[in-house]
């Protein structure tokens, strides 16, 4: 009962935080109190949050190390761009909201299919082998997209592989990537996507399937022996995560007038992994906050001039040490003790924050 209640509180706080952040941003946007530099980062932040939350599903909840998450994002991104460009040019569909939704849905579906295709053979592998195969997959996708040319000719799409002589309007131009993209992504769409991702991930985690996934993570053989279909549940987490990454990719792709495949190299996958680990493996709220913090951080470090990325690396290492070293954690625990005491006074009905295993 208590565990259930705690989950409810955790979920409501998570949703509350997102909605509050959205409302504050909207308020600042309407009063003009937000700097341009921050305004421009809102949509990418939403995308990276969804990426972090979805990778957390694989790394944290399902316990697999995936280094190819950016690959799914790139599938979603380029699919979204092609769908949106095609709809606009071939069918004169000018409504940006409709096109954005369509792009995100189709992007998610294709990324999900890719996830399933890769997942079927790959999920037999474990640990670092899974990591290296997902990394390999991400690199293959990047290499293929660099060779891909797509154009809209009348009402049909034309694809060229290593062949740039296509009739009609080019949507994708090989290593130039997607060109002349109409930027139709909006912050509201980003917010809605974050909420949808949260609903899916939190519901999945707290459902029967979610418990099965976590059981497989904690003790695969034990889970198997009580009749849990290991492959099915691992696939469920993997494909869901790929679909969310695809949707985030579509939103991301439609926020810039150009996009190149090199954007989704393995360092980008690793970046998302950094969000997840920094936020606390398995902790959805933490993933969100870490994604936000680490997206804003390099921008706030601009005053360091040429030492900017150096400062970023130092901050990253220090934060990792501070949040994972037992000594440092105990130290910060003491510092934050008054904060927790404050919470306790307000809610005296919750004595279980004190020590002891409250199960």
């Amino acid at each position: 009962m208590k565990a259930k209640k705690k989950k409810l509180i955790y979920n409501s706080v998570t949703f509350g935080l997102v909605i509050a952040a959205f409302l504050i941003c909207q308020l600042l946007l309407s009063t003009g109190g937000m700097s341009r530099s921050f305004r421009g980062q809102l949509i990418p932040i939403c995308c990276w949050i969804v990426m972090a939350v979805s990778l957390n599903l694989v790394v944290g909840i399902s316990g697999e190390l995936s280094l190819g998450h950016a690959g799914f994002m790139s599938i979603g991104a380029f699919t979204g761009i092609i769908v949106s460009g095609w709809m606009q040019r071939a069918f004169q569909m000018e409504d940006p909201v409709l096109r954005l939704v369509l792009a995100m849905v189709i992007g998610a579906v294709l990324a999900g299919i890719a996830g399933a295709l890769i997942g079927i053979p790959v999920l037999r592998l474990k640990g670092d082998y899974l990591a290296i195969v997902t990394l390999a997959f991400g690199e293959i996708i990047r290499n293929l997209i660099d060779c891909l040319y797509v154009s809209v000719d009348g009402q049909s799409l034309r694809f060229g592989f290593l062949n740039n002589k296509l009739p009609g309007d080019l949507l994708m131009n090989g290593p130039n990537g997607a060109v002349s993209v109409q930027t139709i992504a909006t912050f509201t769409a980003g917010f809605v996507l974050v909420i949808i991702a949260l609903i899916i991930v939190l519901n999945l985690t707290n459902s029967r399937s979610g418990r099965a996934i976590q059981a497989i993570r904690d003790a695969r053989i034990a889970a198997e022996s009580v009749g849990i279909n290991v492959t099915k549940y691992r696939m469920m987490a993997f494909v869901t995560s790929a679909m969310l990454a695809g949707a985030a990719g579509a939103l991301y792709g439609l926020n810039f007038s150009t996009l190149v495949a090199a954007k989704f190299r393995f360092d980008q996958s690793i970046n998302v992994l950094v969000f997840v680990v920094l936020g606390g493996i398995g902790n959805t709220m933490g993933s969100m906050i870490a994604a936000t913090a680490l997206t804003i951080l390099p921008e706030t470090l601009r005053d360091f001039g040429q030492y900017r990325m150096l400062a970023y690396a130092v901050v990253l290492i220090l934060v990792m040490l501070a949040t994972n070293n037992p000594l440092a954690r105990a130290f910060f625990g003491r510092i934050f003790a008054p904060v927790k005491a404050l919470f306790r006074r307000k809610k005296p009905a919750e004595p279980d924050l004190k020590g002891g295993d409250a199960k």
Partner: protein
Amino acid sequence: MSKKTHNIIVRVALLLVLVLVACLISSCGQKKEEPAATEAPKAEDVITLKIAHIGPLTGPAAVYGNATSNGGQIAADEINAAGGKYRIEYKTYDDTHDAEIALNCYNKAMDDGAQMIVGTTTTSPCIAVSAQAAKDRTFMLTPSASSTEVTKDKDNMYQICFTDPAQGTASAEYIAQNGLPTKVAVIYNNADAYSTGIYQTFVDKAKELNLEVVSETTFQDNTKDFTVQVNDAKAAGAELVFLPIYYGPASMILQTAAQIDYKPVWFGVDGMDGILDIEGFDKSLAEGVLLLTPFSADAKDEKTQNFVATYQKNYNAIPNQFAADAYDAVYALVAAAEKAGITSDMKAADCCDKLIAAMQEIKVEGVTGTMSWSANGEVTKTPTAVVIKDGKYVGFNN
């Protein structure tokens, strides 16, 4: 359970503190900038131009961004030291060769009150930024983003460098008209917009001019081994190898060819400039390399020599064409600003249309030649063919 809760609370609290600190730092940074902006135009007749430069200072493309940053800085320093009518506030924003970060840079520059942009250095970020700048009406002049996509459908975007198709066509014409070997191999980077862009037009033009392209091979950004590509060209009997690539991989190709005793005519484009200044590079390998470039650091004119001397003094390196293009970009902007009558207190959006009109009228003599611009933003200047002889550039025709 409780320990876990405790951990989560500590972690979330730490992260929130991090976000708060980050926000505080950024807001402090902004507050500090603002008085400077209003303070600047004190003297009556001195006009301060706020120029933002966007380019990669870190990341794998850092070498190009640092060159443009330094080149522009020298021009700004010279103008400020000369004490004329104009003062330049020149600030570089690091975009790490990424469209998302480049847009952040642009927004930050606008927050800082920049009036015009020199940049961005690399193509893909430039396309992203110029689209946004076209909407906002901000004038941009890129030193080195050479794709035609950069200027396409945007009236606010001008280039200092040649476009990729122009280079591809010019190279093919040069080879055909100057009695160079007609059995040609091409090695290009198929993950790079610049290289692929030149390659595509070169091959089309070569077909037209009856050049025989016998070998086409590619590499990617992280390729280390070029034996397959060079051997393919050798096996196909190519007498001339066209290298529409940057000098880093080009120098690797030259060394690989030397190992297998392959000695064709090497023909490069402006990205090849800089090959002689790689520290430790055996210059004799580049003997006889031909390249079509608007800039060579060995040029005899006073402007170039001054520029090269200052660059060497300040940065302890020989400038390449990226630096030269950025140097010219700042001078071109000042010339356009003078023509357009830009004043210190104008906003970016007020400057834009005036600068666009002025750009098409001015003629600038820079270290990369005499430049004028057409309405689509492309530059007109003449590339010169130079050949490397005894570790120095020499004009090919004279």
